[in-house]
């Protein structure tokens, strides 16, 4: 089914507000490039930054012969039924971002994937940061306020070249009837840095994802930060994995999880298989109302030269912390909200201010629901 929308400006006010919460800027004031896909239709691809290209995936595969080397490379086609479903699509949609050698752009590129009318949205994205480049990508995924049921299946393959840096911030804003199956993987070469931030604080039926970073070059760094809230009826099965496959690589997986009645399974896995590697998993969960937070941190080392650790804590807000703030004049509700806000304040080093603002806005929006 073809959508009748040909421009972001034609979206209803409600939908534009939902998209704004995922970081989409319709006016593009603080964005250097934008990609917008509604269901299976690419509505917009613009990019004003020199050295950066944003292309629909079909156009990218046609334009550059070498892009095919990145297509279904980090993520195998036959990984599971979702990748198989995507692999057999004759008309793949999605976004390719190419940051050419040495291009550094501080202002984020935005990619917006909007599920509006069709039952299933599928996308295949490639983010390719070539040697010495630096890019920030903010991916907002949302469904229309009137969309009751549906599924989003997305493959994202990220390639961080030698000395390159990719910051990928994904904000989800679905509806209670939507199921979401992202399948993503990142390959990081020597001296490359990959920062992944994920925020999901609105109701959803089910999210299932376990992105993997393979650190294949010396001194590569990966950091995953996730901030998630499970409302009643939501099941979030999330995790991230880092494979320290070269010397002097390091990874950190940080999760803040809150349940107000839903289920969160917070997985994490770091494999240290080369010398001078370090990894740490940190998961902190707050149970505000009876629900499930199940933290499964796994650390696996195969030689003496790897140092891996994890810490996980699940519980309620400490009463004496609330009372401490009350002695300074905050009501119980204000004290609780202030502590939750602090709990969610994951320090993400190197995150551009504009991305941090987006994350803060998502937290502020969710906070009113606590």
């Amino acid at each position: 089914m073809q959508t009748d929308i040909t421009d972001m400006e034609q979206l209803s006010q409600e939908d534009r507000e939902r998209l704004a919460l995922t970081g989409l800027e319709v006016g593009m004031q603080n964005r250097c490039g934008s990609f917008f896909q509604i269901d299976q239709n690419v509505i917009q691809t613009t990019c004003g930054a020199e050295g950066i290209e944003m292309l629909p995936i079909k156009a990218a595969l046609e334009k550059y012969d070498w892009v095919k080397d990145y297509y279904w490379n980090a993520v195998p086609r036959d990984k599971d039924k979702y990748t198989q479903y995507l692999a057999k699509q004759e008309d793949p949609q999605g976004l390719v971002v190419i940051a050419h050698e040495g291009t550094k752009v501080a202002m984020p590129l935005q990619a917006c994937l909007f599920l509006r009318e069709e039952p299933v949205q599928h996308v295949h994205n490639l983010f390719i940061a070539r040697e010495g480049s630096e890019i920030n990508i903010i991916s907002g995924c949302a469904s229309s306020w009137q969309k009751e049921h549906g599924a989003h299946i997305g493959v994202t393959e990220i390639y961080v070249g030698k000395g390159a840096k990719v910051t990928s911030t994904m904000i989800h804003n679905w509806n209670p009837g939507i199921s979401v199956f992202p399948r993503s993987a990142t390959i990081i070469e020597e001296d490359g840095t990959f920062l992944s931030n994920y925020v999901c604080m609105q109701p959803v039926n089910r999210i299932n994802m376990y992105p993997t970073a393979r650190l294949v070059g010396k001194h590569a760094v990966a950091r995953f930060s996730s901030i998630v809230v499970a409302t009643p009826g939501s099941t979030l099965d999330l995790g991230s994995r880092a494979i320290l496959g070269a010397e002097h690589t390091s990874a950190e997986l940080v999760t803040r999880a809150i349940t107000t009645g839903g289920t969160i399974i917070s997985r994490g896995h770091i494999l240290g298989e080369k010398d001078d590697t370090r990894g740490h998993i940190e998961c902190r969960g707050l149970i505000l109302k009876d629900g499930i937070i199940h933290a499964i941190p796994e650390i696996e080392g195969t030689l003496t030269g790897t140092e891996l650790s994890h810490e996980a804590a699940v519980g309620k807000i400490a009463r004496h912390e609330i009372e401490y703030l009350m002695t300074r004049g905050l009501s119980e509700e204000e004290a609780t909200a202030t502590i939750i806000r602090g709990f969610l304040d994951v320090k993400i080093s190197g995150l551009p201010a504009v991305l941090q603002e987006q994350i803060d806005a998502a937290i502020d929006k969710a906070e009113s629901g606590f």
Partner: protein
Amino acid sequence: MLDISDLHVSVDDTEVLHDINLHIGQGETHVLMGPNGSGKSTLLKAVMGFGGYTITSGSIVFKGKDITGMPIHERAHLGIGMMFQHPPAISGLKLGKLLTATSNLGGDAIEALAQSVNMEHFLARDTNVGFSGGEIKRSEILQLKVQQPDFVMLDEPESGVDLENMNLMGKEIAGLLEKDVHIVNRRRSGLIITHTGYILDYLEADQGHVLIDGQIRCHGNPREILRVVKEKGYGECLRCKQI
């Protein structure tokens, strides 16, 4: 300012404070002494209104208002403040943010107050997380300077503080209690728990009380009580009749 009458307080169904009577007038500073575990901190927490400290009988009246069943933050709004001995560390909550959230002061005013207690570099740090003993006390003092309570309770302000910080602390506490204001015009009152009495090197206290086994055993001149305790221990007070 504060009238505690026939107060009985239980913790976990065990009575910890028995029949406490205490009157603190406007502008007065009182000192509370007593052995470890005698119930001094419990008394402060009961006055502040903490959960887990059940008032089984008696009353607490502040500025003429019965606050016995009032929530903590309403007591704070009425003008009661407290300096914690062991405040909780709250990760993610910046000290500066806490101060803006709990006051109407602007950023510049808070910055100036922070500078006055050498805490300007801590505003961007998580509240009490990884703070040293002296830093915790300075953080508490800063919060109270922002809050400006009419009645301030201090739980062992000297503990864990080095000499240099003690000097600063002593002066700041004297400031909170308006010791620079003439006795006739002084409005602020205080109740200070002290083991060592060092705080008395920085400010005059009007009354001293000794709490033993949940009972106030004697009232009197704070320096005199301190001298007797230093010389003879609390045994002397045990022999005092219960007041």
